[in-house]
């Protein structure tokens, strides 16, 4: 049994699942627009929380938040379920498939065997869509792949019941009602303001302030923790920035694409200009990643390298602070 479902590859898993589910319901929206309306751009540094043995850094809000914000902005109604009993979770999924409802699932990445080893970590907030069942295999649309895959019942249960931080607990969701004609004007303006406020928030670990805190920490890591640990923390910082699903440069390019689309929609030349600026900032994030990767390639472990990286991050924070102040005034 295969539902009528159009799989489209996307950069980010959460947006990709949303876009695919909504498109399927006849509500056309692009990935950058979904990302922008969900105020997906973010930065947070949680030095006290260790993920994979390194301090946690995230370039996005908590999983699920982007979709919820966007759904709220547009008046989309979404049904969500979690199950303490895996058998019930599967039963609900089967029921949905029978009723012709492609269903979004939140799953853990580690046991997804179709990913290369380099991507398999205990990250429990990946999004996939199930769109059919053939014999004993569920047909899966994983938004970051350009083809569809399939998983057995057992494999699917394993990823749906991955444990640890953000354990999905069989979380499934699907849109039940989409608006017919929506005017995006207000939604866009509100979402942009939200992103600006987040990035300029007067909280030391959030937004540009969080970036400055990381920039300072890079120097401290080297002195306090030694070269090996400092490098490892740096690896994780850059890995999060360029991880599959970010579209590169810590989501900056997706956001630039959103600003362009928003500029066209609102007929706002200033937004179009700012979109170009955001893309340049994205390029600078990529430069930062290149610089960081040199630490391992050349094995140059002088303090100087960390100083350079720290300075670059400071510069990025300054650029983004100026950028988001401008953006706030542009809408």
């Amino acid at each position: 049994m295969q539902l009528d479902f159009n799989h489209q590859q996307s950069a980010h898993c959460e947006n990709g699942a949303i876009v695919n589910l909504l498109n399927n319901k006849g509500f056309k929206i692009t990935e950058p627009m979904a990302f922008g309306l969900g105020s997906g751009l973010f930065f947070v540094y949680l030095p006290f929380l260790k993920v994979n043995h390194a301090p946690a850094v995230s370039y996005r809000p908590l999983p699920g938040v982007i979709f919820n914000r966007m759904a709220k902005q547009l008046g989309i109604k979404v049904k969500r379920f979690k199950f303490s009993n895996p058998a019930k979770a599967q039963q609900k999924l089967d029921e949905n498939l029978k009723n012709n409802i492609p269903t979004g699932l939140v799953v853990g990445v580690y046991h997804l065997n179709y990913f290369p080893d380099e991507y398999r970590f205990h990250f429990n907030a990946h999004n996939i869509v199930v769109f059919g069942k053939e014999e004993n295999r569920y047909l899966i649309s994983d938004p970051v792949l350009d083809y569809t895959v399939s998983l057995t019942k057992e494999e699917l249960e394993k990823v749906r019941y991955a444990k640890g931080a953000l354990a999905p607990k069989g979380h499934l969701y699907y849109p039940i009602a989409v608006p017919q004609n929506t005017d995006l004007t207000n939604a866009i303006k509100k979402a942009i303001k939200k992103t600006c406020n987040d990035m300029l928030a007067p909280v030391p670990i959030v937004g540009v302030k969080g970036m400055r805190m990381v920039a300072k920490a890079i120097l401290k890591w080297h002195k306090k923790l030694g070269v090996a640990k400092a490098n490892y923390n740096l690896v994780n910082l850059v890995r999060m920035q360029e991880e599959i699903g970010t579209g590169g440069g810590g989501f900056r390019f997706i956001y630039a694409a959103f600003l362009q689309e928003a500029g066209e929609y609102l007929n706002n030349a200033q937004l179009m200009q700012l979109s170009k600026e955001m893309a340049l900032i994205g390029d600078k994030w990529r430069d930062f990643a290149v610089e960081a990767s040199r630490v391992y390639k050349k094995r140059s472990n002088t303090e100087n390298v960390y100083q350079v990286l720290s300075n670059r991050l400071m510069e990025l924070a300054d650029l983004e602070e100026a950028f988001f102040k401008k953006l706030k005034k542009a809408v």
Partner: protein
Amino acid sequence: MKKNEVPQDDSPLKKHKSNELVYAVDDDGKFVSVQSSGWEPKTIIQNQNLEVLNQRVQEALNDVTSGKISPIVYYMELNRMDWQTLAAYMEQWTFFVKRHAKPSVFNKLSTRKLQKYADIFGISIDELRNFKG
């Protein structure tokens, strides 16, 4: 990033006959999504990350062989878990799971508990009891 600047380097994804989507501007300055087979700096970072994780596995292996810790630590590292994740899978407090790292405590674990560990790690109970590396 321009469309023609989107990196098409060798990468773990490419080896997997896969790719990822990135956003770049085309000649008219319009953003489009482009498939990228990989980016060298990213691959370097990922390899570096795996290298560190492999070191951790190796260290754990040495410590198990020399009798300093129990095989649970080795399999935990092998499965890229930390104590919190393992404790979540065991449905126990981290404190108790950490104690099982002591060989003296580990040797007294019940078969049921060992079986639970073995299931989580996808191995047989024998591999835990008679650890060979």
